[in-house]
């Protein structure tokens, strides 16, 4: 059985003289939530448009559910639900009518799925209200409902929480986690709200200037982003003993340069420094360190970009 839902091989897209995507090798494992991180114009939407068949690659290949032939790709896209660059809706229709269009399109028998899906995204009470009178948040939810119709195995969501209020964000996050954990749906989600992605994604891809800079799991990212106290003293061995004895922890690392990374007690730096000085150690450097996703991303793409 294929372990990957999606794999791209040297996928490139050129518009006029500009490379929108350059030799992207991305892979998304079945059952994962893949957070695609990138600035505006980094190539996220281009990549999604190529995967969903809205645009064609200049070079390279796409493999979806193990299929890479063009005809087979069209067929397996039936197993995908999408929101691409915002929800695409018929404004003069109601929420139910919008879903009816997609129910017919996907050939889903019976209309029960419409009410069920509307309830899933909290739009069951919209009645005869036309979509043109919906708030942005309601439109996002309806876009998600359309993507969920027909029980897709793979969801591709481009900025799905844009315009949602804080409660809406929490609800949609909960829903996506539920879909992933209970139904095993693989999700590719692109967002510029990195703190949100951090709460959701199991894997990350960082894209910049059309290039996929890095793919890493949440575990790997957490290791890279882990907070710690950077301690440099005159006697690192004694400091290690003091920490072990005084704080009853081995959650630290003595680095080759003699500095210590203390991963515990990060929120109690005063206690730590007091314990070290009480033992007669001279503190040369002492500071909390580590990165959050935002800092990691900014550093990875080469600092803050001004545009």
């Amino acid at each position, binding site marked *: 059985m294929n372990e990957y839902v999606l794999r791209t091989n040297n996928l490139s897209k050129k518009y006029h003289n500009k490379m929108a995507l350059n030799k992207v090798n991305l892979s998304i494992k079945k059952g994962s939530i893949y957070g695609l991180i990138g600035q505006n114009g980094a190539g996220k939407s281009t990549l999604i448009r190529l995967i969903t068949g809205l645009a064609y690659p200049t070079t390279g290949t796409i493999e979806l559910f193990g299929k890479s032939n063009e005809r087979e790709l069209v067929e397996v896209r039936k197993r995908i639900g999408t929101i691409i660059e915002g929800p695409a809706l018929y*404004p003069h229709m109601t929420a139910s009518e919008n879903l009816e269009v997609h129910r017919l399109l996907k050939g889903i028998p019976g209309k029960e799925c419409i009410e069920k899906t509307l309830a899933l995204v909290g739009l069951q009470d919209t009645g005869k209200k036309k979509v043109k009178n919906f708030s942005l948040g309601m439109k996002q939810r309806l876009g998600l409902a359309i993507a969920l119709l027909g029980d897709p195995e793979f969801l591709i969501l481009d900025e799905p929480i844009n315009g949602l209020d804080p409660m809406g964000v929490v609800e949609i996050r909960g829903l996506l986690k539920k879909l992933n954990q209970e139904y095993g749906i693989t999700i590719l989600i692109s967002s510029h709200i990195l703190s949100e992605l951090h709460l959701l994604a199991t894997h990350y891809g960082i894209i910049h200037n059309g290039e996929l800079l890095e793919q890493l799991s949440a575990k790997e990212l957490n290791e890279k982003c882990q907070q710690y106290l950077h301690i440099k003293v005159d006697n690192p061995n004694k400091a290690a003993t003091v920490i072990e004895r005084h704080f009853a922890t081995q959650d630290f690392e003595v680095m080759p340069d003699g500095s210590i990374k203390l991963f515990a007690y990060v929120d109690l730096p005063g206690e730590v420094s007091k314990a070290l000085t009480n033992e007669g150690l001279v503190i040369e450097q002492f500071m909390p360190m580590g990165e959050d996703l935002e800092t990691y991303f900014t550093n990875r793409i080469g600092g803050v970009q001004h545009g």
Partner: protein
Amino acid sequence: MGNLMKTEWYKLRKDRSFWVLTLFLIAFAVLYPLDQMRLFEGVSNLPSGNDFYRGYVLSINDQIVRLFPAILAGFFIASEYSMGTMKNIASSGNSRIRIYFAKLTVFSIGSIIILLILPILMTGASAIYSGFNIMPEWTFFFQTIGLITLYAAAFASIMALFSVIFTDSGKAIAFLLLFFGLIGSLLEFLSAKVSFLEPIITHSIFMSHESILTIDQIGHWNGDDVLTFIVVPILTFLVFGILGSFIFRKKEIK
């Protein structure tokens, strides 16, 4: 293909421009003969059935209503791009060619409905108002109904192609109204200047559609008539349909 057709049919039934055009034409078909008969009252005899059908029903249909599907094309086809809904359709796991032909087929049906309202309803209404005194000859009536259907589909395939190119309802409607409003005169001018184009232009749907009004004057149809009035509209539908589907297949959807 069945799912796509059902989807497009559902969308046509929900399309407001389609209903506005249809209801406007129904109202016109019912009220206009009343107004005309009021004018003839006490002045002269009512025109004959064929004259009324030819002079009022068909000529209004041919000169004005023929352009109405351009409005439907803008809202039913081009607006799918501006609303972004074409992205959902194109990524739904259906081939582009099937998507295009489903859209074209249902749009053609919509155009045919619009173009048949006056010939059927206005004729019916005027017949009722006159006590069935101004009925056209059945042969003439059915010949025109058949030809209007064929020509509506042929024009629809051209409109669908340009709607896919323009991808914006406003631009598509403006272009199509201008194009269909002027193409006859332009081709006439061209055929007068370039003699070898004259037979092609004469047989094109842009010129031959006007002859539907006098189709009863062809006593016995010869090969050339069949070619002009039957084969050319069908070929036009197929050629522009295939061309449109090819453009849509290659098109990147934004």
